[in-house]
């Protein structure tokens, strides 16, 4: 009996979703490396082994070394910490603020909706990467500015998703029932609207994380994100370009890391969408 009810939970259904499971495994591996990297990297990610510059992959340096003799595997693992930290913080901020704005405007309507959603439309009117780029350019490079840029750019997506759910829930009978029992607006929002509108937001969180990893890597690649010598995948890839013919392994490792991260969160997001929202299942059907 227990196994049967487990199969029916969201988690159980996700495990039977093939590509969703692959995504989940990738995400867990990345999270583990990101959390444990200070203890498990074979070398310090910024230690320069001057005698071992530009060494090709070997048993001593699994992914080789860069032009300063730094171990690329260690930098890759520390890069995961950096990349996921930026992605998680910025998605938390944009998810919280965006969802709040969306629920308030959907539930309250009127001028609150007008002001909030026009503001979100304005952010939405830019090509995303360009807005992130301009914010980083204005504030200067560095992790906290990257986080701010990503948070602002992704906010409207959370707001739209949350507003859509809030609008639907607002009209349901149990809200009316609760209201007729004398529940305040605040209570309605916290007790009923928020928990019931979170499902699409959860899907969006996973997709937002994959986008955030991509954006962090892009900004670092352009020299507008993480500052050297901190290890960042985008920065490592950018550094590898001038030494490409000599040391292609310098590009391969961070490239794989970026791609794997984006792929993992994307697959997990698609899987979650299929599992959590059966209405959308027939439409996409891509990753099953």
């Amino acid at each position, binding site marked *: 009996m227990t196994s049967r009810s487990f199969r029916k939970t969201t988690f159980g259904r996700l495990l039977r979703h093939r590509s969703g499971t692959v995504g989940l495994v990738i995400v867990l591996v990345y999270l583990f490396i990101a959390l444990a990297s200070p203890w498990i990297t074979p070398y310090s990610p910024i230690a320069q082994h001057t005698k071992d510059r530009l060494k090709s992959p070997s048993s001593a340096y699994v992914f080789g070394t860069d032009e300063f003799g730094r171990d690329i595997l260690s930098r890759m693992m520390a890069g995961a910490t950096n990349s996921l930290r930026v992605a998680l913080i910025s998605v938390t901020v944009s998810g919280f603020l965006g969802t709040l704005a969306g629920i308030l405007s959907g539930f309250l309507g009127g001028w609150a909706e007008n002001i909030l959603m026009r503001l979100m439309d304005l*952010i939405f009117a830019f090509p995303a990467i360009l807005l992130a780029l301009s914010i980083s350019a204005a504030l200067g490079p560095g992790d906290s500015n990257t986080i701010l840029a990503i948070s602002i750019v992704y906010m409207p997506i959370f707001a739209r998703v949350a507003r859509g759910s809030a609008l639907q829930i607002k009209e349901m009978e149990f809200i009316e029932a609760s209201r007729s029992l004398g529940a305040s607006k605040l209570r309605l929002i916290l007790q009923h609207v928020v928990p019931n509108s979170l499902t699409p937001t959860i899907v969006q969180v996973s997709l937002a994380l994959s986008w955030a990893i991509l954006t962090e890597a892009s900004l670092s690649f352009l020299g507008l994100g993480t500052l050297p010598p901190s290890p960042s995948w985008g920065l490592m890839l950018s550094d590898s370009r001038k030494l*490409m013919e000599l040391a292609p392994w310098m590009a391969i490792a961070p490239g794989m890391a970026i791609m794997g991260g984006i792929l993992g969160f994307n*697959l997990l997001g698609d899987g979650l969408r299929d599992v959590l929202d059966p209405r959308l299942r027939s439409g996409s059907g891509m990753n099953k």
Partner: protein
Amino acid sequence: MRNYILKRLLIAIPTILGISIVIFLIMHLIPGDTISAMIGTQYKLTEAQAQSLRAYYGLDKSLPEQYILWLVNALQGNFGLSVRAGTPVLSEILSRFPLTFELTILAMIIALLVGLPIGILSAVKRDSILDLFGRLLALIGMSLPNFLMGTLIIYILSVYFNASPNSGDYVDFTTNPAANLQQMIFPAITLGFAFSAAVMRTARSSLLEELNKEYAQTARAKGNREQRVILKHCLRNTLIPIITLVGFQMGYLFGGAVIIEEVFALPGMGRLLLNAISQRDYALVQGTIVFIAIIFVLVNLLTDITYAFVNPRIRYD
């Protein structure tokens, strides 16, 4: 229909105004201005010279004043002077725009040429090897960042084919079309690849949906062959979401072009912007971003209008 277009146009105006305000504010968040950035560097300005330069560029006025001044000038096509180069910002932008535009269009053509047939075949031969291949391609396209793909292409070309797409001066299309296309083809493939994945996904799911609709069943029941059902009846409706996708992605391709130009060392608007950022040439940064944003809004507007043409249902809401 005319009312619809007018309504959309009227909505676009406050959006563009809002964008310009946002960009203006972002650009003025920066501590210090171009002039103080100059003092520390090669120019060796005295404080008095800096003051007069600020007055010359209008940087000594209050923020709202500066904005109104900038807006009034911008409406007359004057986006100010590039502080570093001393040339008008608009002429800098317009001289770089054709390259970025060409790159975007080429990328879009490539994406459609690759994505549409694969998406359609994928839907028709559902769950076949071909479908699997198409879906795999879409997955890679979605998760391969364009700067990584560009870097890999350059590596493969230089190591295995002894060609370096990055070297040599850029030749524009009107001077020598063949040489120009040779330079542009790899950047365009790089930019278009991710988008072809999106086209493929949309074409596949949209055609699958159409094939199950009642009118398709009717067409089959009348004795049409499946091929005819697909080509004559379903394909046309499949294209509607593709049009929307193309329109809305155009702006994102523009943003992506910024990165691709950096990777392939092409002197387009993206490089202009990135150079302006690194040289703290704010008038140029501001002008370029506003310019791109306006194009983004206009393309979206055009998409909405085209969409209303092909799909009469949404015209009257």
